[in-house]
């Protein structure tokens, strides 16, 4: 990972250096101009980033404003009297910790299992020829084009018939099949050299062993990408868990949030909503900040290119 990054840095800087090679005296103004441009670009990007982050910053501000009343006809960037009262209140009134725990369990277990399913499917679709492969893959891809509103009720009936409803497995199981994950896995596996697999088979390794000992170890970046994308999608998943989970204690964070909004019967306590929303975003943010480099490197090597 580090190697890749530094090489990226080097070659991006290379042209300027190559062009400015002739001699020391002429290099210095040129380099200074380059550096100035770099700082200008950084400044511009930082300004843009501030604008981009602002709405979420505003979410936090709203959560810290009494009664959620961050609305004002005056322009301000920070509340006069920030308070954590919204957090205190909503944590006292709603089982937010349980929601977080449920979300972690569902997103964690779901992601782990789904990554296994996607790896297997990706491997088969990339490295084997078998009857129906093309059709199967095409059918997989078509499923992402069908809006969930249409399949919601039929899917719910099936899940109900399996006796899963109201348990976390009702969320986990039907979402294990992850088309984008399979797609990414297949793309990556296409790039795994056949020679490697052949060599393992020549050594007499069985299919499972070949997969586990030879193919899988090359899949580090792929697994990283699948885990991050999978976790993020599951963490934010809303419509499906909304219909299959029941009982305030058993909800995930986005569904819990939805019980506080979207109701024609009462007006939402927006301060509380923003507090929960803030709490919901933080874990994902941490995951992304920690794995940001791995993620980008992973995408680079997964073959979505």
């Amino acid at each position, binding site marked *: 990972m580090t190697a890749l990054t530094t090489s990226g*840095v*080097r*070659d*991006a*800087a290379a*042209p300027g250096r190559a062009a400015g090679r002739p001699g020391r005296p002429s290099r210095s103004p040129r380099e200074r101009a380059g550096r100035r441009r*770099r700082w200008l670009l*950084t400044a511009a*990007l930082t300004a*843009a980033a501030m604008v981009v*982050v602002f*709405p*979420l910053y*505003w*979410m936090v501000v*709203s959560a810290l404003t009494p009664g959620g009343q961050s*609305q*004002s*006809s005056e*322009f301000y960037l920070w509340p006069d009297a920030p308070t954590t009262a919204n957090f205190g209140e909503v944590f006292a009134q709603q089982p937010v910790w349980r929601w977080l725990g449920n979300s972690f369990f569902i997103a964690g277990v779901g992601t782990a299992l789904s990554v296994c399913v996607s790896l*297997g499917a990706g491997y*088969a679709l*990339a490295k*084997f*020829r*078998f009857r129906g492969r093309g059709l*199967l893959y095409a059918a*997989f891809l*078509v*499923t992402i*084009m*069908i*809006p969930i*509103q*249409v399949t*919601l009720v*039929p899917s719910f*009936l*099936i899940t109900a018939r399996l006796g899963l409803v109201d348990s976390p497995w009702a969320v986990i199981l039907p979402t*294990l*099949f992850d088309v984008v994950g399979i797609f990414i896995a297949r793309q990556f596996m296409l790039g795994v050299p056949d020679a490697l697999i052949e060599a393992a*088979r*020549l050594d*007499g390794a069985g299919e*499972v*062993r*070949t997969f586990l000992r030879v193919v899988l170890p090359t899949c580090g970046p792929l697994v990283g990408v699948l885990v991050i994308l999978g976790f993020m999608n599951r963490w*934010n998943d*809303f419509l499906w868990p909304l219909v299959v989970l029941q009982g305030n204690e058993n909800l995930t964070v986005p569904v819990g*949030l939805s019980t506080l909004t979207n109701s024609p019967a009462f007006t939402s306590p927006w301060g509380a*909503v923003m507090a929960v929303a803030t709490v*919901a975003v933080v874990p994902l*943010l941490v995951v*992304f900040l920690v794995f940001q480099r791995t993620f*980008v490197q*992973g*995408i*680079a090597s997964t073959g*979505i*290119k």
Partner: protein
Amino acid sequence: MSRNAEPLLQESPPRPGGRAPHRGARGPAGGAGHAPSASGRRSRWVPYAFVGPAGLLFLGFSLVPIVIAVALSFQDTATLGEGEWVGAANYATMTSDPLLRTALLNTLVFTVGTVPTAMVVGLALAIALNRPLPGRAALRALFFVPMVAAGVVVGVIMSWIFNPDYGVANNALEALGLDGLPWLTSPRTAMLTLVLVVVWTRIGFCMVIYLGALQSIPSELREAAAIDGAGRWQRLRRLTVPMLAPTTSILLILNVVFSLQAFDVIYVMTGGGPGFSTTVLIQYVFRSAFADARMGYAAALGLLLTAVLLVFTLLRQHATKRAEDLL
């Protein structure tokens, strides 16, 4: 979808002849534990075993619901299982539904507004943030942040920010001595505001995917181009963009899918209004299914959406192939 991958596919089938002796020598191998001599038969079931879990899940949780939905689209029903078969009546209704026509047009505007914008901005950010800039990692993370917020929350926050009377957007404009804008409250600006918001949620994703693709462009190529004296703009046009074409292709399809299925943000921010100015197809599917309780019609509308996507994808692939043939 990556061109150089296809030859791999052709070579991938196992060649039993080369393997047999070794396997015989080592006996039953690994977890498979099947008779070594049956290698031919074995290679036949192996791929099915690997794809099996995905296949079963697909069958149970995707295919069957889809088949039911297709069946529903030929029924007149409020709840599942109690419908009357009405043939293609739902599809016939679509042809004379004025609201559907409005919704399709709005969907087109929304998609054309969001997809290319998000991709171009994402690409620009990726190119900029692929350079050795100070604070690069932090900047990347910041641009990615909007992706992690739930749709409902984005909707509410943005409604507050863009409220013309007490929203921070107009407050800021007025503090700068400018006139406030009507944002979501005028049929003429509501769609534009929504596009802006949705692009905002999308640029981080496009940026990350492009960043990954940029880093996989061999550095020798760029160095060679630089030595050939290609300027920055030329390198971008002649080298970077073509090298990114497969990524662009995938991002395009994903973005179109996202845009066609964008529901929460629009529902919360405008409810399809003012008037019908932001009523898009997915809104209408939702409304038919759950506000109107016309499951059959909703299913037909949903399948129309799917058909639009499929046609788009196929056209796109066709266009790519033709472009490749020409090269």
